[in-house]
């Protein structure tokens, strides 16, 4: 029996029990800690140094304020990017907007700095500029993912609506907009990670308000690596919570979508 359970660890789509999953997670974390503690890299701060740096930043360096600034930017940017991207993706189903949709997708290859001048001209330095940067940067990736979801709708679904006698709007709502929402949520969740990468760069460019990105820049330029790693760990933690929230929301709002995956 035990042998069977262990052999499923290396089996394709092998199923494991909850205790084994927990044991695996603990094992991997332990392995990571051992590697970190005994790492030969001298520049790497120890776990204790990182934890102390985090405590110091919260107590003396207003880390909570910087965290709120970044979270606010993250949420506002994500909401704007989602709305804009949904609009561009859904409009892409109409021939009139197809090329606009393709162009937006291609823009994800352009380096971020390419847009600096345009944004500095259009927006006031500070929160509006950062939101515009984040919204635009994330939208390039979101539109790509969302359009792929729309393109994967089987032709038969459109034809079902057609033979039932649905008009264009009814078909769009029933076949395209409504059933793709759980997948769109997945795309947003996946790209939220890209958002965090962008946020740190954006806050490095526009440091007036502070934020986690500005803090990382400041500490790395003064070679305070324990603080830098502490902030990176904090981002990882927030990202994990964000992921869990998306999973929870998907299960709550679209219960059929998780059933479909299991079927």
């Amino acid at each position, binding site marked *: 029996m035990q042998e069977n359970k262990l052999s499923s660890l290396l089996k394709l789509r092998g199923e494991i029990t909850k205790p084994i999953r927990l044991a695996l997670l603990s094992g991997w974390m332990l392995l990571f800690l051992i590697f970190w503690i005994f790492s030969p890299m001298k520049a790497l701060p120890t776990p204790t140094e990182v934890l102390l740096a985090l405590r110091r930043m919260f107590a003396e360096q207003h880390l909570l304020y910087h965290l709120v600034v970044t979270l606010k930017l993250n949420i506002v940017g994500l909401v704007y990017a989602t709305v804009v991207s949904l609009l561009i993706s859904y409009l892409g189903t109409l021939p009139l907007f197809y090329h606009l949709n393709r162009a937006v997708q291609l823009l994800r290859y352009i380096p971020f700095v390419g847009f600096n001048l345009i944004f500095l001209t259009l927006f006031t330095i500070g929160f509006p500029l950062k939101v515009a940067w984040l919204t635009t940067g994330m939208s390039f990736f979101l539109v790509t993912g969302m359009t792929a979801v729309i393109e994967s709708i089987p032709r038969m679904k459109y034809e*079902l609506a*057609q033979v039932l*006698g649905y008009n264009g709007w009814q078909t769009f709502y029933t076949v395209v907009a*409504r059933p793709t929402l759980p997948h769109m949520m997945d795309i947003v969740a996946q790209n939220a990670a890209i958002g965090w990468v962008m946020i740190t760069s954006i806050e490095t460019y526009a440091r007036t308000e502070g934020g986690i990105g500005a803090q990382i820049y400041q500490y790395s330029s003064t070679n305070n690596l324990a603080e830098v790693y502490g902030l990176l760990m904090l981002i990882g933690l927030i990202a994990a919570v964000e992921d869990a929230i998306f999973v929870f929301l998907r299960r709550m709002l679209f219960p*059929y979508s998780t059933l479909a995956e299991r079927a």
Partner: protein
Amino acid sequence: MASYEDCVAGPLEGHVERREALLKLERVTQSFRMNNGVELVVLKELDLEIIDIKFKPQIVSLLGPSGSGKTTALRIIAGLDKPKFGQVLIGDGEQGSLRRVRAGDVGVVFQRYPLFDDLRVVDNLVEPAVRIGKMSRKEALDQALQYLDRFNLVRQGYSWPVQLSGGQRQRVAILQQLITGKKFIVLDEPFSGLDPISVSNAIQLISEIAHQHTLNTFIIVTHDVSAALLISDHVYLLGRERDEKGNPLPGARVVKVYDLIAEGIAYRDNMEDLPRYRELYKQICRKDFPLL
């Protein structure tokens, strides 16, 4: 105008009163350009006429081997594709009056029974009934629950489509078309991939629905000879004829029509025991199919 109250439940015996044409395919030709630039003629001057028979269920089969253009014909009948030449005409409710078919006139039950997976089973019926059947939400819900009850699906009413078995999906897909008031319902290969018992159940189900809705016309697209004979009142054999040298001519058409009412075997119980059924089955399998 006839109503559901005029319908008589089958199986039906007695006098056959043929009335006006319900659906007509006139010289329908369809071709596709292939990657090498060659024009592939799939259907060539396909003529087909489905006549209304008073108080009788109407189940006709489009029978043909694989690649005989059945699905192409289905798509044209349903208004999903336009033919290169020819036309499909459909009765518009007034006696003898026909008009060109439009998408939405003919219901289709597709092969894998697609449903709206983000709606519960009952809402898969209610939503189309409200939008297309022009019912109020309450009327649509009452009607949907009646249908689900009649077809043993009440328990599944509040399930998600993904939780249904293949047979249950098939029933919901048929009901979805019925509730929107479709007079013509085409079923694309409803017996394909089913074991013999499931085929028998599917035949029984479709027959039951047809007998309860004698104002509807069911068109079964299939390659299953036995099922086509067991379920239909007319079987249209679709295929490509051959020239004197035995080479197939381009484009399929209706090469033979089997009028099972005239043959005296339509709507009979235990049809498989009738000698005429066995003769027809042998004739189609051994003589007619190999010639296509």
